[in-house]
């Protein structure tokens, strides 16, 4: 069997590219190996851990279960694309740094990409909606607590709610007045 190749045209981190790929490659393979965008991490390769998440046409995808040939015509962002030309961190990256949302850092790139999508959506998520929106990522270091805080704060700041954002600091005890049957 001879190998099958294809030229893929797409935009990665704002730059138009043409890349020859083996059609068997996943988008993770293309980004990591061909384009050397190593922020895209491999944690499970079956779409369970979320470490390889990239933004495709405005939506977060697990690049491990996305064929590289499907990138044709798409606009793709990886974590490398969020940092400014002078090394400036975007606000969501900075929030991850400031809030202690990073430990080993392996899940971080994927988490930041999904968070970037959330904070740029212009939508105010409830706490439960935030958890759900972030639930495609597994993290074994942080218990998600500081990630939650980083995303919520940045989301509120994007909405101009600076004072509310500052109040997100306290962990505190949550009161649940009503029982919450599973349904």
């Amino acid at each position, binding site marked *: 069997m001879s190998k099958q190749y294809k030229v893929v045209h797409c935009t990665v981190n704002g730059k138009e590219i043409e890349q020859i790929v083996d059609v068997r490659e996943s988008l993770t393979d293309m980004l990591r190996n061909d384009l050397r965008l190593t922020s895209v991490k491999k944690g499970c390769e079956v779409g369970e851990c979320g470490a390889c998440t990239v933004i495709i046409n405005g939506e977060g995808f697990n690049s491990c279960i996305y064929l590289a040939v499907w990138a044709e015509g798409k606009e793709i962002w990886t974590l490398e694309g969020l940092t400014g030309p002078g090394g400036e961190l975007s606000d969501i990256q900075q929030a991850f740094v*400031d809030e202690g949302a990073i430990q080993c850092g*392996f899940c971080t790139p994927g988490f930041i990409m999904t968070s970037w999508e959330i904070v740029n959506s212009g939508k105010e998520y409830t706490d439960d909606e935030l958890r759900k929106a972030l639930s495609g990522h597994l993290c*074994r270091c942080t218990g998600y607590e500081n990630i939650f805080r980083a995303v919520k704060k940045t989301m509120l700041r994007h909405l101009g709610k600076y004072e509310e954002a500052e109040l997100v600091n306290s962990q505190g005890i949550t009161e649940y007045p009503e029982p919450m049957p*599973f349904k």
Partner: protein
Amino acid sequence: MSNKYIGQSVTRLDARDKAMGRIKYTDDMCDKGALVIRVLHSTVANGIVKKIDTEEAEKIPGVVRVFTCFDLEEKHYYPTAGHPWSTDPAHQDIADRLIMTDRPLFYGDDIGAVVAEDEVAAAQAIRVLEKSVEYEELPFVLDAQEAMKEGAPQLHEKYPNNVLAHTEIHMGSVEEAIKEPGLTKVEGWYETQPVQHCHIENFICYAYGEGDRTVVVTSTQIPHIVRRVIGQALGMDWGKFRVIKPYVGGGFGNKQDVLYEPLCAWISIQLGGRLVKLDVPREDTFISNRIRHAIRYHITSWMRPDGSFAARTIKAWCNNGAYSSHGHAIAAKGLNAFPQLYPCDNIDGETWTVYTNRSVAGAMRGYGMPQASYAFECHAEDCARAMKMDPLEFRRKNLMPVGYYHAFSKNELYSDTFNQCFDKGAEIIGYYDKVKKYKNQTGDIRRGIAVSTFWYNTAVYPIALETSSCRIVMNQDGSVQFQLGETEIGQGADTAAAQMIAEELSIPVSMVHPVSCQDTDITPFGTGVYASRGTYTLGFSVRQTAMLLKEKILEAAHQFTRMPVYNLDLIDGKIVRTTDGRELMSIGDLALSKLYTTDGSQHLTAESTYQIKSNAYSFGCCFAEVEVDIPMCRVRLLNIVNVHDCGQVINPLLASGQVHGGQSMGIGYALSEKLMWDEKTGRPLNNNLLDYKLSSFMDHPRLNAAFVENYEPTSAYGTKGLGEPPACPVAPAIRNAIGAATGLYINELPLSPHTLFREFSDAGLINDPWRKEEQGKEGR
């Protein structure tokens, strides 16, 4: 001591690079041209490999070589535990492993390896090879107590009845003590399950030749130990190997074992030093790395009417899987903790570490204490209930008292830690109010709140060597690099060490740079990070080395200031004359002058080793509040609070992060995680992140971490262990809270819907009219 940098929430030094995605982990550093190794795993749980036909696999395009267990010319059995080596053979880890074996002892044992140009060819070859192995299948055993029975399959010749080790403790006389009239007896079996570390970066390593040596780059917690073990496994001089540890995507103890570095190095050598990469797929990580021991406890207590203990017994069976790894250390830790946490004059205890045909158990966050804490704290709750005492008051009464001294470890409880932690946690979560509020509930949805505590100590003294080495090198501008054997694996060791050095040298943290990636050719010897010892042990060598450097700095300052050293100090980056407080020169000017002076040029550096001969108790507690939906057999964790006394907190933000991570692991341990094997074949059933239920973002409430800071007097910076303790008390707190809600105190983990359904049915909380016969209760 007033601190400027210690105790501050300094941002992790690597956070910015990690947020940019430019930190390099092992795979990111490996050249694209590397050949790919895939390990051929046994598909029988116990057996003998008779033959492996490699012909067909070798024909697959892209396959470079197939190695099998029969290619090993010499058999060098080696130990894998990330323990410091001992020159005393009696204290050495059991050497029972081969890099490939023809005598597989568990489903997933390593019997061969494929080297290929790409992962597809490697996977194709593995699939072909799996069908080309001829086994003589042998009966297998998965349960520890079953494995000890006469006639059970034997795994290792030298260990009859599969008992790797058996130890006992005896204090006073239980036999006499229980004759006391009026005693209440409480007895229980407590069963914990095997779980896996699930660091998001799988284990990975690569190897290549350099000169007449082999370089191994590996995702490990213990680079210097890895180098020694590669040497042992290959029967070669240890200096023939250079081990490099890049940034690590989590370890949690799994990477405190030597995993595939020896095999990878051996294959590179067979291929003349070619670059070969062994990237363990997630599915294999669950099977052929390490897991946490399932330990079964049996505890009996005899209580006096006042709620004190008259006598206690404990037995524990620790399922070690097929190879020794950390051996008896994990079971022994639990057994030795038992008489310390709730002291009693009359105690009998024994524990067995048992080989079974399951995946190998090793170190995992808590080192036996999550299991022991579950047993101890379920039992404490049961004792309190039997005595009709408030569970918190019961603990206050019976826990290790202030001033308690443990002769072997020389540990002492210096402060009223337990009560302080309880008070703080109870206040944060509103414990006493909620206990009242949640009394006598009925209905389908009920809530409960409860507490648990745990025993932990900080390092491995006096059981094993404790040594830490540090090197600090000053630059021309007065900034420094430092190197330590204690590895950064995500926990923040580099940042904590930098804060200590900044404190000692009185320079800003921004002038202190970790050389984060250990290289055994460059990094001073250190055994790595484990046992929650990092911050404690590195503190000694960091402080000693920084003091040495400071001495040299002040001596140099004498040369340029003409002032006597005893009138000089280093304050805020300046050489200061202490007699009048005048700043004489900056540290940068000094470093520059000293290096380039034509009169006695010197590069200001210091290096030292500190052997630690102390240890420290590190205690705390967990409060959990749950809501149980009885018909749905589901638990929702509403609130959780951990309070820890880890002494002086070096960095509150990072310390909280450690607590959150431990809580999170505890939540999964309590409610959902469990590795399973097929009883008929010994095959792992759920070795992937879909079927193995690591708790997700939506399974977590907000996590609360609080601290009580009692300065640890034995420590260089008043600090003590925090890495593992937060994972220990969570599961029993959740179990006790479910008990408070439903009246059912369940003695096994996880408390998943499967377990709850069975228990609720047995107890009549669930009545399915169509099920005529009650489900047979499993277990003992």
